[in-house]
């Protein structure tokens, strides 16, 4: 079988085409918010938020009888509630934020599993929620994902300079009298929406990789934010496509194949940078002219 045929054969299946579109979309959307999460050190928050939407997914699943639209809204409600709840809890109790995150995240996750386990045949569906079901993406799923993904990318672009200032120097944002609280919450809501958009591809447990790993890889390659964001989107989308092809031929779970590809790209980039730096340091230095 030639290379071209290797690449084309999966495209003969409609579920693969939808899956490929979905992972590319998720790569771009996760990069848009993930870049800020990497810059602001929000990896743990993102991981927790992804897990905490499970009860929302469960309620949507139990109430909607598998209708995707309702699942989407319930998950979104759970994510927004959790992100606002974490902030409120750490302020009200003077707990450190990561402690508040840990409490809310584990509690919500357990609630989600408890709810889903009330259904007798829960294990298959639970696995899909936990690890994704990218080959089960339907046309209407794609439509939802495209719509909300578009809103995320557009919002990040429209408020680019405000998010930039808030992330780099929140004191400056305050002295410029920007509505900092509004933008903080807006970013949390955008992360929540991105997680729900990505739910089908990698599931809640591996979500953090789609948010963080491509952006982290890009941060090794560029010191300019716009370039970094575009690189992260490209790396995320490409990792999704490569991972999905791998899962098609090697026959491993698609979500894990995508995440492993992201991780491999990060590892290779890091290795490349390290070797490049080592070679540069070893090279004889030109004598400085006075």
């Amino acid at each position: 079988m030639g290379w071209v045929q290797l690449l084309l054969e999966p495209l003969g299946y409609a579920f693969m085409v939808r899956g490929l579109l979905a992972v590319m979309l998720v790569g771009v959307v996760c990069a848009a918010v993930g870049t800020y999460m990497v810059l602001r050190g929000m990896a743990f928050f993102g991981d927790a938020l992804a897990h905490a939407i499970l009860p929302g997914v469960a309620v949507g699943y139990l109430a909607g009888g598998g209708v995707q639209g309702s699942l989407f809204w319930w998950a979104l409600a759970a994510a927004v509630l959790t992100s606002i709840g974490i902030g409120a809890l750490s302020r009200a109790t003077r707990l450190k934020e990561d402690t508040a995150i840990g409490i809310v995240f584990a509690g919500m996750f357990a609630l989600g599993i408890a709810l889903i386990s009330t259904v007798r045949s829960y294990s298959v569906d639970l696995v899909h929620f936990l690890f994704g079901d990218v080959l089960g993406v339907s046309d209407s799923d794609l439509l939802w994902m495209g719509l909300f993904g578009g809103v995320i990318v557009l919002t990040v672009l429209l408020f680019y300079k405000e998010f930039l200032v808030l992330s780099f120097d929140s004191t400056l944002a305050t002295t410029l009298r920007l509505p900092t609280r509004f933008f903080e919450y807006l970013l949390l809501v955008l992360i929540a929406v991105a997680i729900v958009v990505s739910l089908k591809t990698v599931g809640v447990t591996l979500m953090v990789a789609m948010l963080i790993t491509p952006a982290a890889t890009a941060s090794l390659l560029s010191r300019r934010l716009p370039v970094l964001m575009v690189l992260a989107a490209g790396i995320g989308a490409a990792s999704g496509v490569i991972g999905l092809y791998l899962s098609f031929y090697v026959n491993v779970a698609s979500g894990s194949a995508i995440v492993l590809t992201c991780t491999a790209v990060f590892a290779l980039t890091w290795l490349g940078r390290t070797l490049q730096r080592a070679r540069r340091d070893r090279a004889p230095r030109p004598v400085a002219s006075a």
Partner: protein
Amino acid sequence: MTQYLHKLLPQAAVHQPQTPLVDIRDLSLRYDGRWALDGISFQIRGGERIAVVGPNGAGKSTLFKVIAGVLTPTSGSVAIAGGGPSRHICIAYVQQRAQVDWGFPVSVADVVMMGRIRQLGLLRWPRPADWELAHQALGVVGLAGLAQRQIGELSGGQQQRMFIARALAQEAELMLLDEPLTGLDTPSQEAIFDILDELKARHVTVLVAMHDLRLAAEQFDQVMLLNRRLIGFGLPEQVFTPGHLAEAYGGHLHQFGPGDDLLALSDTCCEEGS
């Protein structure tokens, strides 16, 4: 939509003429269960250059953040040109360099442009005139050639000057510089003082938190001695008296020389050159 966006950015406060630029009355601030600032009152007229000195933990940064409207006092009042600070966009607070993420993926010009985003307003990108202003600001601080550098590539003195350029791009009338001289060698410090002279010519009011009393006395019209309470504020020779210094620095004070010569002490800090 547009109407709602306007609500997000209320009109900036207008300065009342005939009022002091900074008017602080009986200001106290409680932080983490102790008084970080206690019963402070003073007034500053526009165009002055003031050194704020005191030991570590004296509340210099806290005072600056209260003036900038970042922290809210527990009691007392702060007025900037006749109104509360929270609606003024003419105040620039430059934080200590150690608190900045120098790996952040932005260029020098990007950082200076951050000072203009309030003037730009929401949903607008910088226009050529804004970039022109940013580059002019960089020219004033002598960084015109480094506009495209990543911020981590700058030396300490250049980093400090970049933030002053950002304050210029913000068109700030009141600049609060938090320990800008710390960690700088003497030539870099002199470059900062040259820029402070230029700011004075532009009638910008500057407060500088610092540790070096000799530099404070030599380079500033007025000095403020702070240790949670305001110990003295005025001409250096009136403020830096042995009594005041003992009150501010307590056990860290070692007086040399005879009589009431204004002299040395070993501060709890710093790498500031001497």
